[in-house]
């Protein structure tokens, strides 16, 4: 390499660290640094000066709601990832239930959206009753609900991405009263989504609507999906 080229690249190191090079320029610099010990050393020497910049900003408190939304989504996805290997594990193991108790407590609901479906696998011998009726307003969306005791896990697939500022919110109906299930979530990039519904006792229907970020007190749009829970 000639001195002019080296000097020019060296002059770009600070801009590179600050993210101020165009992508093509950054790639060229990275190639140069890979073969230039002097520039690599200089890059590492200056790097801490950029790493402290975020620490210089004035501290602003985030709303507790942000933490709540994050943890709600994380716990929902964690529950979903535990329930994911359905084909390889019996459903009762997903929630860590002991087999005898789990078999009696678990209801597996498979939902087909865009119409009307009734399944009844029978429940001889005290096994789980798996009848459900599902309706929805988003053709192609599928839902699966796994219920273990008082907790339900709703998994959706084939969802469209939401408009900016919108989230999905789960609702439960007990009698004539519809209340928030306190589950806000967004579709994953592959169109799937998972929500954990606590307090399933007495719930007749679980619904999901699109709501403004932060959620709503009452549903403000038609349900994307409604899952009727067998009694």
């Amino acid at each position, binding site marked *: 390499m000639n001195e002019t080229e080296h000097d020019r690249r060296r002059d770009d190191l600070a801009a590179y660290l600050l*993210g101020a090079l165009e992508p093509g320029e950054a790639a060229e610099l990275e190639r140069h640094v890979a073969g230039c010990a002097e520039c690599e050393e200089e890059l590492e020497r200056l790097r801490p000066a950029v790493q402290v910049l975020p620490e210089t900003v004035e501290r602003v408190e985030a709303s507790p709601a942000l933490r709540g939304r994050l943890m709600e989504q994380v716990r929902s996805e964690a529950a979903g990832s535990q329930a994911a290997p359905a084909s390889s594990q019996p459903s009762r193991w997903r929630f860590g239930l002991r087999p005898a108790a789990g078999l009696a407590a678990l209801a597996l609901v498979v939902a087909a959206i865009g119409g009307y479906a009734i399944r009844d696998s029978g429940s001889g011998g005290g096994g789980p009753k798996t009848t459900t009726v599902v309706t929805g307003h988003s053709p192609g969306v599928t839902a699966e609900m796994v219920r273990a005791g008082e907790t339900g896990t709703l998994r959706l697939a084939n969802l469209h991405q939401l408009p900016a500022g919108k989230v999905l919110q789960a609702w439960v109906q007990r009698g004539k009263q519809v209340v928030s299930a306190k589950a806000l979530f967004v579709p994953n990039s592959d169109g799937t989504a998972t929500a954990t519904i606590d307090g399933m006792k007495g719930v007749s229907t679980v619904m999901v609507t699109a709501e403004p970020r932060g959620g709503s007190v009452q549903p403000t749009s038609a349900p994307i999906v409604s899952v009727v829970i067998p009694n």
Partner: protein
Amino acid sequence: MKIRASKAERLADEELMPRIGEKDPDAFEVFYDRHGGVAFSLAYRIVGERGAAEDVVQEAFISIWRSGARYDRARGSVRSWMLGIVRNRAIDFLRSKAGRAPKLDFDDDAVLEHRPSAELTDAEALRRETTHELRGALGELPGEQSKVIELAYFGGFSHSEIAKMLDVPLGTVKGRMRLGLEKIRGELAGGLA
């Protein structure tokens, strides 16, 4: 195996990341409580709106939750990695809002910068400087140097955009950036002595 939050609180960031990779929400909760404040502050500093800053932080932390296993402790501190992700997403928001084409590479792995792990000690020690002292390091720069650094790092502008904005030659912008970082580095090194 899940760990209880009280146990997770005693773990270093680098020890939390594998737990997050195993989808342990308690580990993630500790991670957020530890770094969510500075993450939100940085996002707010960049985007200037609370709602947008919350969206940026939520996106960034969810991406960490989903890809925590991709963190490589040999390539940088967890905090720097996380703040790089937040900064990238905030700049992405800014540029999208302004109609500017995204300039940065938003592959979160890109913020895992190559550097020897031995550098971490230095960087972590630097981080432990008080925020006041750190602000001082930036605040004591000549205005022309702090301006180009802030436009680049917090504004997401390229050096050529800054040159046009300030109506100065590109070489001048590069020089101010370099001199500014040199001075901050010098201040930090002095603080460690």
